[in-house]
């Protein structure tokens, strides 16, 4: 691959980064996360390597990195030394590929990341290393300061000091419910268990439109492992499990590589940093059930049982995996830990606002220009996220609502655009933070249809254990279906509301309790749309196909 006469680059096997032997003036970071890979980013990577070599650029590197964030505009290539991002660098697109190589050689082009609001409004803690390091090389992670926090914790801090640091940082669970992480850790640490404890990383991300955990696991898996090891040290656990969905094969592959490399480098396993503390990690792959993101169902699944939740208490912190005290944290929570220990609780708690401190990763999706992965300080307004970072709606579309929290979340209308995005405000608005899916909807969206979509999801994903969730969601789905077909009466809307309250109150786990949320929140802000379907047999957004009233009457599907 090297042309005669040009100096040989250090080493390069196929699919490995091209790193020159001497100083690096500029480097092309090629995104190798699932989104860009699906658009042949690996071919783009090969072409760039070939072109750089052909041009004789001996002080230029071409690196495989994780998610660069702007997923809708992939394949993406960043040149961090010049603060540039090249989008739509399609495989075989000579002009685009040459554009990147020109940039590497010193030419103009690309987006300026310093002035582009998509990049400049973000604060990266969890995603700090995403797009900077090769996710399949532990050396890359160590080079940016990886595992320093773990070493610091096990060599210079007591477990109580680590707990104190995490508590003072104010971080709350990033999986959805926002339980204070420090409190959870302290509970597990205080529970005596001579037979051991466990740390479980919940990577069973299943909300429609959410891909934060996937991107973190694909882009910086070592960071999650480091967070788990620190957690293990703090709570007194020596064994960890990462529970990942089988639908994320690339995340599983990179995580497997990361565990092997970390163990080989002595960063995981027995006697970490020459101390008596040891920690090992195993992967468990989910079988495709949304409910397994619920902690008790996840535990049942790891134990090899059917993934169904059980009533709490006892909480996993007291009796979890194999009946032992178990710390369960979301991927994002654990990925925040190395930075908190490394830079301190004060640094972390200076980000964010009120009771919601730190940053949150959102997967911005739907009717928005910059679809992708973003990380923002908590307390930013919805408007800043959707319009400044997200770039607004494509084609000048009109904003209608933004949905957060997946199937347990709610829809916020235009009037709430200036609302701060934090745990309390979202709950007050009838939604939840959730794991971080944020779906923007334009005026071509029917809110009844949206509620029906989420109810269909809950109905399908209900484990079937408790009656309210199993049958209640099915009955609510049928009622919503009748409304979207123009067959429902006002009485049936009353039935829907009454069922929603009952399913929320009596369901066994969070999936069931949260399932009426999309209905309740759309009824709260978009009741007129429901009424238009029922009274006027019209779908204002023009989405639902109304059934002819006469035919329905004749078929006995509606009351006269």
């Amino acid at each position, binding site marked *: 691959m090297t042309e005669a006469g040009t100096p040989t680059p250090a080493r390069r096997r196929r699919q490995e980064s091209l790193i020159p032997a001497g100083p690096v003036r500029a480097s092309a970071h090629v995104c190798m996360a699932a989104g860009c890979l699906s658009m042949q980013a690996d071919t783009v990577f090969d072409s760039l390597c070939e072109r750089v070599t052909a041009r004789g650029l001996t002080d230029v590197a071409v690196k495989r990195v994780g998610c660069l964030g702007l997923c809708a505009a992939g394949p993406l290539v960043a040149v961090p030394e010049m603060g540039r991002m090249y989008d739509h660098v399609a495989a075989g697109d000579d002009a685009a590929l040459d554009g990147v190589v020109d940039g590497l050689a010193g030419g103009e082009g690309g987006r300026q990341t310093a002035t582009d609001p998509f990049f400049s409004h973000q604060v990266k803690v969890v995603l700090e290393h995403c797009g900077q390091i090769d996710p399949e090389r532990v050396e890359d992670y160590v080079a940016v300061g990886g595992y320093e926090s773990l070493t610091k914790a096990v060599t210079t801090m007591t477990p109580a000091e680590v707990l104190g640091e995490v508590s003072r940082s104010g971080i709350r669970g990033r999986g959805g419910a926002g339980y204070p992480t420090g409190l959870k850790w302290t509970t597990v640490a205080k529970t005596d268990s001579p037979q051991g404890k466990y740390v479980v990383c919940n990577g069973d991300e299943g909300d429609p439109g959410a891909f934060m955990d996937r991107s973190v696991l694909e882009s910086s898996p070592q960071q999650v492992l480091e967070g788990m090891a620190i957690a293990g040290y703090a709570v007194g656990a020596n064994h960890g499990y990462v529970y990942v969905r089988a639908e994320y094969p690339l995340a599983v592959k990179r995580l497997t590589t990361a565990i092997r490399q970390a163990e080989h480098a002595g960063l995981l396993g027995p006697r970490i940093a020459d101390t008596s503390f040891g920690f090992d990690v195993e992967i468990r792959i989910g079988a495709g059930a949304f409910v397994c993101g619920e902690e008790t169902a996840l535990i049942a699944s790891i134990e090899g049982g059917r993934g169904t939740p059980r009533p709490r208490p006892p909480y996993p912190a007291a009796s979890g995996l194999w009946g032992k005290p178990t710390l369960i944290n979301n991927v994002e929570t654990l990925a925040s830990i190395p930075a908190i220990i490394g830079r301190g609780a004060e640094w972390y708690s200076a980000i964010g606002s009120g009771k919601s401190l730190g940053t949150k990763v959102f997967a911005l999706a739907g009717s928005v220009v910059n679809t992708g992965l973003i990380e923002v300080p908590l307390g930013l307004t919805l408007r800043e996220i959707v319009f400044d970072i997200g770039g607004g709606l494509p084609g000048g579309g009109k904003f209608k609502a933004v949905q957060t929290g997946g199937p347990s979340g709610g829809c916020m209308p235009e009037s709430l655009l200036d609302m701060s995005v934090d745990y309390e405000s979202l709950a007050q608005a009838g939604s939840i933070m959730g794991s971080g899916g944020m779906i923007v909807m334009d005026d071509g969206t029917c809110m009844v249809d949206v509620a029906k979509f989420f109810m269909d999801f809950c109905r399908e994903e209900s484990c*079937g254990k408790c009656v*309210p969730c199993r049958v209640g969601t099915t009955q609510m789905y049928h009622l919503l279906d009748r409304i979207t077909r123009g067959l429902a009466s006002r009485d049936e809307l009353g039935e829907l509301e009454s069922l929603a309250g009952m399913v929320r109150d009596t369901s066994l786990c969070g999936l069931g309790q949260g399932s009426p949320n999309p209905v309740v929140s759309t009824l709260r802000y978009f009741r007129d749309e429901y009424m238009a379907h029922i009274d006027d047999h019209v779908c204002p957004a023009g989405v639902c196909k109304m059934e002819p009233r006469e035919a329905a009457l004749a078929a006995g599907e509606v009351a006269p």
Partner: protein
Amino acid sequence: MSVLTLTIEGRDVAGQTGHTILQVARENGIAIPTLCHLQGLSDVGACRLCVVEVEGQRKLFPACVTTIDEGMKVTVNSERLAAHRRRIVELLFTERNHICSVCVADRNCELQDLAVEVGLTHFDLPLLSPQAVVDATHERFGIDHNRCVLCTRCVRVCDEIEGAHTWDVMGRGTEARLITDMGIPWGDSNTCTSCGKCVQVCPTGALFEKGRSVAEARRRRPYLPYLVAHEGRTR
């Protein structure tokens, strides 16, 4: 083991640490409707009929798996709880094909009794009428999935008392179905000991003994407490 005092329905009662609200209530003659609970089997908190209110808590608690606390104030009957329970029984009736007039368990059915107990007089919700099957491959027993309420008593009695674990559940949501072994016909099961415990604990007519008339289909349930050393084991 220490004694705790609490209030249930305004009455001062006492119970032992680790006992559930349901246990203490029943000891004191306070009725709480249940379906998936059966004395002698572990509790799963699945039917949600036994949910009660605890003062100072917004959430409702299933009495069968919630242990008592000192000074706890429990409300067993309220308008909200009555409405929820009626709705749960209604949901169970609408889920599958519960037609009492042609059922082997007619007048000997806990679901029917529950409907009376919670005052369910009619259905507001439509019947889902699924196409469920009957497995009559076993030589002595049969299962009619149309009448199953997924209480999983059979699963638990088979696993915990007989020790065979022939029964389990597969599928999700309203598609969830009881299975024998890994989903083979009951008659082909080589783990089933034909002990018939599952038939005895079934609250409806889903599990039945072949060749018995409706009048003879009475369940013999009180034998269970004799089989287990103590009750109230929870998982």
